């Protein structure tokens, strides 16, 4: 039973990590740029949830869930701002320029959050209720199941968009060969903006999902970007399904090891694993060459 509960907790954490990693890898593929602000965007989404919570009408049910569309839309807008400020002016420069500009954007977000919210941990409201469900003896937090459901829906939506729609095909073509995409009539800059909006909205959603159970502080982003980075490395740099799988693996590992040993040990082992993978299997655990990514 304990194991099953840990599994549910790990999956919930992994589902949120998966959204972070997914947003990271989509932007990576579309721009060849590492968005180092992704972790701070998660934090921003969480604090946005915290800030919006008091404005929810008290007479309506499902308080936390109602925040989700608002957070998604506002964060998508923030993604557009990020792209316009930190990516577009530097797109003809070497990738390291964007790397640094996104670090700067992240620092601005951190400091902005400190000024607005102070350093102490905050919690966003739960998505449904703070209660637990008894599934035939298996007691799980409703919040865990809600996180898994919301993340699964968002990821399924992304898969449908990219796989089945013309917009998705254009987003993918832009990621694979931007010049050739233009030569097919695709408005590449618009596609890049949309990708940033999507990636940031996913970070924000993850922030809202995490900010109830795990709380949120202005500096929470550093840990999250590292995990997204590890997830994408494990999954194969540039692979979308790999990023999701990598995120789930990391979270299960983290929850498992933390329960037996401790969280710092889990984190240390995680970083050690990253080093081993970078050296031994640079193509990631699932080993699809980046050239062939979807």
């Amino acid at each position: 039973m304990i194991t099953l509960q840990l599994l549910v907790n790990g999956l919930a954490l992994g589902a949120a990590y998966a959204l972070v990693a997914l947003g990271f890898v989509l932007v990576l593929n579309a721009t060849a740029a590492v968005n180092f602000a992704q972790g701070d965007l998660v934090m921003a989404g969480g604090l946005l949830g915290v800030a919006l919570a008091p404005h929810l009408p008290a007479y309506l049910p499902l308080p936390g869930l109602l925040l989700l569309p608002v957070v998604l839309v506002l964060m998508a807008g923030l993604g557009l701002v990020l792209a316009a400020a930190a990516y577009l002016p530097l797109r003809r420069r070497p990738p390291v320029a964007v790397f640094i500009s996104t670090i700067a954007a992240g620092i601005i977000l951190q400091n902005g959050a400190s000024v607005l919210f102070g350093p102490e941990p905050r919690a966003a409201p739960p998505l449904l209720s703070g209660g637990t469900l008894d599934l035939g003896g298996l007691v799980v937090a409703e919040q865990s199941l809600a996180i898994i459901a919301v993340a699964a829906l968002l990821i399924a939506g992304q898969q449908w968009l990219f796989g089945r729609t013309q917009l998705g095909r254009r987003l993918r073509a832009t990621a694979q060969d931007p010049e050739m995409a233009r030569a097919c009539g695709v408005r590449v800059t618009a596609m890049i903006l949309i990708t940033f909006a999507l990636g940031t909205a996913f970070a924000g959603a993850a922030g809202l999902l995490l900010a109830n159970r795990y709380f949120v502080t202005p500096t929470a982003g550093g840990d999250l970007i590292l995990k997204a980075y590890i997830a994408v490395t494990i999954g194969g740099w540039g692979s979308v399904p790999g990023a999701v799988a990598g995120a789930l693996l990391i979270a299960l590992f983290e929850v498992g090891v933390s329960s037996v040993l401790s969280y710092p040990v889990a984190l240390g082992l995680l970083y050690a694993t990253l080093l081993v993978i970078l050296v031994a299997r640079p193509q990631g655990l699932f080993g699809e060459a980046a050239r062939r990514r979807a």
Partner: protein
Amino acid sequence: MTGAPLLQVEGLTAGYGGAVAVDRLSLSVAAGEAVALLGANGAGKSTLLKAILGLVPAMGGRIRLAGEEIGALAPERRVRLGLGYVPEGRRVFPGMSVRDNLEVASWLGRAERVRDLERVFALFPALEGKAEERAWRLSGGQQQMLAVGRALMGRPRVLLLDEPSLGLSPKLAGEVFAAVRAIAATGTAVLVAEQSAARALSAAGRVVLLRLGKSIHDGPVETLPGDALRDAFLGG
């Protein structure tokens, strides 16, 4: 089925940084006409096609599509107005399925898109069985067909092809050029860059010879003097 020129290039100069690779070049292609652009390595064929599309900025001159000046427009605008491009080296989207490679280049609604897809499959039956296959898994010849088919999905009025026979067996190259002839026969203006004179001449009615970025001959295939060809390839 030739008529007023669909593509008109006048005094086009283009290059990289300061270096001129296409020098005050003029040519035109009429609807239904196939024109071969012949020249040796580095003559400027690819640069000319890219400059027509806008992928390489023009430093001077005009480009008209059906009389409309398009030289100041972004490449994607030119494509939507009716330019189609098959690049050197095919450049299919490797991780996307054959079907997605084709559909992404269409600007029509779903029903029309599917009809165009079927038309491409009719032109290149080898692609139909591979529709769900990722493009990187195709053979070189199939990738070339896919690149041509992808350009056709945009319903181009002018089709620009850059060495479509490169690296193909003579048989496959013949198939690609047969398709090029069929495309021109539907009223599309076709401009095809080639290094191999024999192949290009089999598909084209007119030849533009390029040397060091300049047009040194422009006329029907029958009037192409052997020494002009020799000059283009050997210098002189």
